[in-house]
């Protein structure tokens, strides 16, 4: 039995007067891939963004309840958000490379965390790009702008950039929704090679994707967590009627 990496307890989230998450309870196992599924606006991305406190950046967000990462409640006052985000990396829906060279994109994280020696940076850049299966495609143009890469390459660059700060949890917010099928396949394959070392949570609109790559699946509806189970179980034998309706395509 693998141990618990993240535990969400009695989590409520409000945008102003509007409650977006209701009383969420969730446990995520170390070294697994968990998929969050559900229709648009169900709160799955919002929940993902509470796990690295990305919602802190938005005005009028109020959160109650607890989120434990490695037994530490990340909403405790003494928690250092910078350290938290080093451990809990995030990839976004649309690739968002910085307008700088490929090398500088990857080196950005290590640099802000104090790594200055060129040899160390070179090594991190190469290792991260290898891990993201991008090295062979870009090794001859590391000094070129990252904006010249294709969408799929940009997204893998963003994954490499996240890996460069050496996190142990990877949050992926619909990472393939802006990509073509081949790039999508590459990113999916990547999640499989990464899962031995990292705990991955992926938000997806695509149920086949969830079925293909995840160990556990969590279904959300209108800000409520409806069902969380092993992926196989959820897709073959959903316990809740609403889950069944959703995965059989009756709504959503």
């Amino acid at each position, binding site marked *: 039995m693998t141990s618990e990496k993240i535990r969400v307890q009695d989590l409520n989230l409000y945008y102003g007067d509007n409650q977006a998450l209701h009383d969420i309870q969730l446990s995520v196992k170390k070294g697994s891939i968990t998929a969050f599924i559900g229709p648009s606006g169900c709160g799955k991305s919002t929940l993902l963004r509470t796990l*690295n406190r*990305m919602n802190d*950046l938005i*005005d009028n967000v109020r959160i109650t309840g607890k989120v434990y990462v490695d037994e530490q409640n990340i909403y405790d006052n003494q928690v250092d958000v*910078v*350290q*938290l*985000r*080093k451990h809990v*990396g*995030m990839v*976004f829906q*649309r690739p*968002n*490379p*910085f*307008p*700088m*060279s490929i090398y*500088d994109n990857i080196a*950005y*994280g290590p640099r*802000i*965390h104090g790594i200055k020696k060129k040899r160390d940076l070179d090594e991190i850049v190469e290792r991260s790009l290898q891990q993201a299966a991008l090295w062979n495609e870009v090794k001859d143009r590391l000094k*070129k*702008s990252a904006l010249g890469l294709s969408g799929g390459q940009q997204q893998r660059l*963003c994954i490499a*950039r*996240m890996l460069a*700060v050496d996190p142990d949890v990877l949050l992926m917010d619909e990472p393939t929704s802006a990509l073509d099928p081949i790039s999508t396949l590459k990113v999916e394959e990547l999640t499989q090679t990464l899962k031995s070392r990292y705990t991955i949570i992926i938000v997806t609109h695509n149920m086949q994707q969830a079925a293909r790559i995840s160990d556990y699946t969590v279904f959300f509806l209108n800000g409520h967590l409806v069902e969380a189970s092993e992926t196989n179980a959820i897709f073959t034998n959903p316990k809740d009627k609403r889950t069944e309706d959703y995965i059989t395509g009756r709504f959503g």
Partner: protein
Amino acid sequence: MSKRTDRLMRGVFIASATFVSIIIFSIILFVGKQGVQTFRDVSPAEFFFSTDWTPLENRYGALVFILGSFLLTGLALLFAVPFAVGGAIFLAKYAPSWVREILRPAVDLFVGIPSVVYGLVGLTVFVPWIGKATGTAGFGVLAAALILAIMILPTILSVSEDALRTISRSLEEGSYALGATRWQTIRLVLLPAASPGVLTGIILGMGRAIGEAMAVQMVIGNAPLLPTGPGSPTSVLTTEIVKDMPNSIFGSTVNNALFLMSLVLLLVSLVLILLIRVIASRREV
């Protein structure tokens, strides 16, 4: 019908573009043609390298004014840019929205204040203050630079703030998600990404600074002498043109020399703008 309107409008737009271009080029041509005639009576070496401007005795050295314009513009930018960019960062990234809603229109309002008002403020506030501090009359390049800095600050601030705000939020989030602090995000991601916009603001400010005559003339002292200190009267291209033009006859040597100074002013601002554009395009990756 619609096709004809389309063609007609196309014609209208081409005509207005041509018209504007023609006007601009005629101005440059006219100023240039008048200016170049100076060289019938004055050698280029004297005009560009002599500091002796005594038209009554036929000495037409304009070096004081050329250097003065550079010095004044440089100083004004030196004073204004740090505050303007800092203010832009504050308004775009730190200020709560209600503060921004008050300050932003106020800043835009400042852009529209006539320069004579700034000149008056300089005359009654800065000149006595500098005079007291330096033991002089206070008229000079420092007072002018301070006034210009205040004048161009809102322009640079306003354009820079727009540039910062138009940067996609996703870039910012990408940086925060890697564990960057707010200041790291601003310094390493947002400012570089906004730098073309910030630079545009600086160019606009610079254009206003180098071309400003009224406010500068009120506080700079208007003596054709190289400045020896913050409170020593001097003169720049614009102020000298304003001062001497009404007293000169069209076609006389001094009048031509003033046109030549206008041409220099025009070319200097053109070159500065091009230079900054080149630097900016090099810095982009």
